[in-house]
């Protein structure tokens, strides 16, 4: 029942248009790359200073000076451009990227997102996530609908420290897709994964949404 992680990524990839500049977070978002059609010209941004991110290198291509924001070795593409961190975030903050796709621990019905720390448990830091959600024109969250212990992650108000306020435009989970037209509107359930019922979504969601 529902979508696999790869199918969540495939659904999110449908939001990416030809010619888009896109930043992908870690986790499910990294799988989005595999679902970009060969006829689509999409440029991936790596916030440590690269536009035009290619696949992982062959063994003999590995270069310690060429990594992504997750510190993995990568390759460049024919249209690659390198720049420093200040320029990298100027293009983020300036609204020049079309879409960012990020994971989340919680999203609220008002579009707040929490994905950078669990007090007392895990503190890694926000990295570039706060800049991305504040600056990129369209923010899509991909996540499991509930946490490992079954707790709903789409909630009325986030309990965890926020990454950004009122900045999420679409949520793709293993059960369904929520989207909203603008940041004043409530989220609407726009799509159910195969064999998932509205009742099942309602039972596993604490946020208000229009069905």
């Amino acid at each position, binding site marked *: 029942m529902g979508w696999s992680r790869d199918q969540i990524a495939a659904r999110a990839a449908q939001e990416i248009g030809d010619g888009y500049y896109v930043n992908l977070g870690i986790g499910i978002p990294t799988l989005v790359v595999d679902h970009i059609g060969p006829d689509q010209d999409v440029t991936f941004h*790596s*916030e*440590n*200073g*690269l536009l035009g991110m290619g*696949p*992982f*290198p*062959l*063994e003999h*291509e*590995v*270069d*310690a*000076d*060429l*990594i*992504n924001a*997750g*510190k*993995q*070795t*990568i390759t*460049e593409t024919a249209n690659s451009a*390198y*720049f*420093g*961190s*200040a320029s*990298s*975030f*100027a293009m*983020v*903050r300036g609204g020049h990227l079309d879409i960012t796709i990020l994971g989340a621990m919680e999203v609220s019905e008002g579009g*707040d997102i929490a994905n950078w720390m669990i007090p007392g448990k895990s*503190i*890694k*830091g*926000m*990295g*570039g*996530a*706060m*800049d991305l959600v*504040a*600056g990129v024109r369209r923010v899509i969250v991909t996540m499991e609908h509930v946490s490992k212990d079954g707790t709903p992650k789409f909630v009325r108000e986030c309990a965890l*420290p*926020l*990454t*950004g*306020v009122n900045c999420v435009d679409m949520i793709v989970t293993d059960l369904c897709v929520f989207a909203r037209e603008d940041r004043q509107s409530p989220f609407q359930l726009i799509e159910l994964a195969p064999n998932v019922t509205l009742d099942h979504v309602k039972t596993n969601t604490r946020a208000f949404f229009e069905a």
Partner: protein
Amino acid sequence: MASKVFPDAAAALDGLLFDGMQICSGGFGVCGIPERLIDVLVESGVRDITIASNNCGIDGVGLGKLLLTKQIRKMMSSYIGGNAEFERQFLSGELELEFCPQGTLAERCRAGGAGIPAFYTRTGVGTLVAEGKEVRNFGGEDYLMERGIFADLAIVKAWKADESGNLIFRKTARNFNEVMATAAKVCVAEVEEIVPTGCLEPDSIHIPGIYVKRLVCGAPYDKVIEFRTTRTEDAV
């Protein structure tokens, strides 16, 4: 004019270090880190340092070495993952940490280096990083005021330099090095190769020599890779 080129990293930092100083360091993870200069900081025993750097190396590598020797009083960083000692010292209260979103950190250093004391950004509005900061509304949207950073010393790693201090970086090893080079009273750069002045194409210089007061060639480098990920020929 006195030469900017120093024979080794210790000579390049001689006379510049003091307890309680603030340092901006380039590098992202362990990519493009000024490792020779960091080693000198460790050997010098300089204490109570405040360091602005995206992260703090990894355990025992790069700035991580200065954590092990407890020489750092405060870090200004966006990310502490991948470094267990960093997380431990922060949680135990031994180390002060100012969490700073990555883009905000970059812009704070850009602003500091450009003589701009503060700026406004949407990043962090309504989050923990907004605590104690001025919020101002422009065109119906809230923005946070963030302060520029201008340190006593910047340490950066570049690929090539000429004897005048003009720097060229390589691929994603540029990262924070470019902006950090501007954000201090004195910038010391370590590079893989120093060529005579006139040998670099002026149009290809990333950091003009005005920012770089001292230079050292740190080659040969044995660059550490945090996550070595590869594909095989048949997979694309």
